[in-house]
């Protein structure tokens, strides 16, 4: 029987190991699985490589994970969001590594990782510092850079609804990186607003089929990052 339901946040994050690569969904706060990130802070795994578009804001969620010293390296496109203080300070003092990837290349590398594509070519970043050291190749008169597929040990993502097979749908622009991260991770852990019976979601509208999902925890009323920041909250 397939039932991916996990009862506790602690259990959901229990086996994330030191040195793991962890993809975390979200574009800013939209789609950020904040309860799962806080569970990872409670759990305490260190020296993580984290893949996210940004580096978090304030002192909750991803920023709190970084502030707690658990992240050795960030792979992201934009580590300089409004309200982002934690990462810049650590980066300037040389305490965290950064792999800066153009946003579309980041998305495509994750999708490639999930789709069994070890490498692909893109024109993005050619003739810029971000192409330095990368292999260039000409196709039909235009230069392209070779980029590698990206995989992870774990993905932490947020969905609007899920069923016990792991089928997911999302809310608006909270979808962003979640579907491709679910594909690219060995173990995909989902916090969902509503856990439904199998068969409740129309097969035509499922965005992430359950094959890409491993664990689901229901968080009916997730915290909103911007609200926590407005309240001056920090975690833990």
């Amino acid at each position: 029987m397939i039932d991916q339901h996990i009862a506790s946040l602690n259990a959901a994050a229990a086996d994330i190991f030191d040195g793991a690569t962890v993809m975390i969904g979200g574009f800013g706060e939209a789609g950020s699985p904040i309860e799962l990130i806080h569970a990872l802070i409670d759990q305490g795994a260190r020296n993580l490589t984290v893949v996210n578009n940004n580096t978090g804001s304030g002192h909750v969620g991803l920023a709190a994970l970084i502030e707690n010293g658990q992240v050795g390296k960030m792979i992201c496109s934009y580590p300089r969001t409004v309200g982002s203080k934690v990462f810049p300070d650590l980066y300037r003092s040389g305490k965290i590594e950064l792999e800066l990837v153009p946003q579309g290349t980041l998305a495509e590398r994750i999708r490639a990782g999930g789709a069994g594509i070890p490498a692909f070519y893109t024109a993005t970043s050619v003739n810029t510092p971000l192409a330095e050291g990368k292999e260039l190749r000409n196709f039909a008169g235009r230069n392209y850079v070779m980029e590698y597929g990206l995989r992870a040990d774990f993905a932490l993502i947020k969905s609007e609804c899920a069923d016990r097979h792991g089928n997911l749908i999302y809310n608006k622009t909270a979808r962003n990186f979640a579907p491709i991260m679910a594909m690219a991770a060995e173990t995909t852990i989902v916090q969902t607003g509503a856990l439904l019976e199998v068969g409740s979601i129309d097969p035509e509208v499922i965005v992430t089929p359950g094959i890409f999902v491993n664990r689901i925890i229901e968080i009916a009323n997730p915290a909103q990052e911007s609200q926590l920041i407005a309240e001056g909250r920090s975690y833990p």
Partner: protein
Amino acid sequence: MSGANKQNIGWSREEMAKRTALDIPDGCYVNLGIGIPEMVAQHVPDGREVIYHTENGLLGMGPAPAEDEIDPELINAGKKAVTANPGASFFHHADSFAMIRGEHIDVCVLGAMQVSEQGDLANWSTGEPDAIPAVGGAMDLVAGVKTIYIITRHCTKEGEPKLVESCSYPLTGKAVVNRIYTDLAVINITPGGFEIAELAPGISFDYVQQRTGCRLRVGPQLTAAVSG
């Protein structure tokens, strides 16, 4: 350089956005960068239907919502609350950048730190050693979108020219810019370099030339306007 009354010379931010909006064709798919480019949407002439793409997964983006209708999960690439127009669609990040990289977006309007006369763009990093590098989707957009418009003040706050012979800042892309809208002029990138297509009211060619890092040419449209 331009003195105490610099705010009163040439086009305002609003006017720059308005001028750019005149060049957004009916029926096209447009991606607008953060800042002045975002203002372009408010000024597209009536009767033109334009569909806005935001790279975080929405086609058919509408204006900002009323305060009580904000959904923190419905935002644009600048992470501001937006709305979805009728006919909108949501999709994931890989699909969103397939639209960009696959040359499906018609026009992208971006800001700039520097633009070279070959159309090179620098708009993501000053290259200073203590700067936190952050690129976002800018390199994808300039590599994939068919037409790249730049809106920028003609000079930096310090009065340095932003239109230069060759960019000193790290590039976002090489030979990617088609047209520049500054507070002083509209400038095309041509095989022969910068070509002024239009001057802001009361601005002379010489005034713009003095504030530009390399030689400007006068475009055929402007010649006609001046001689006519």
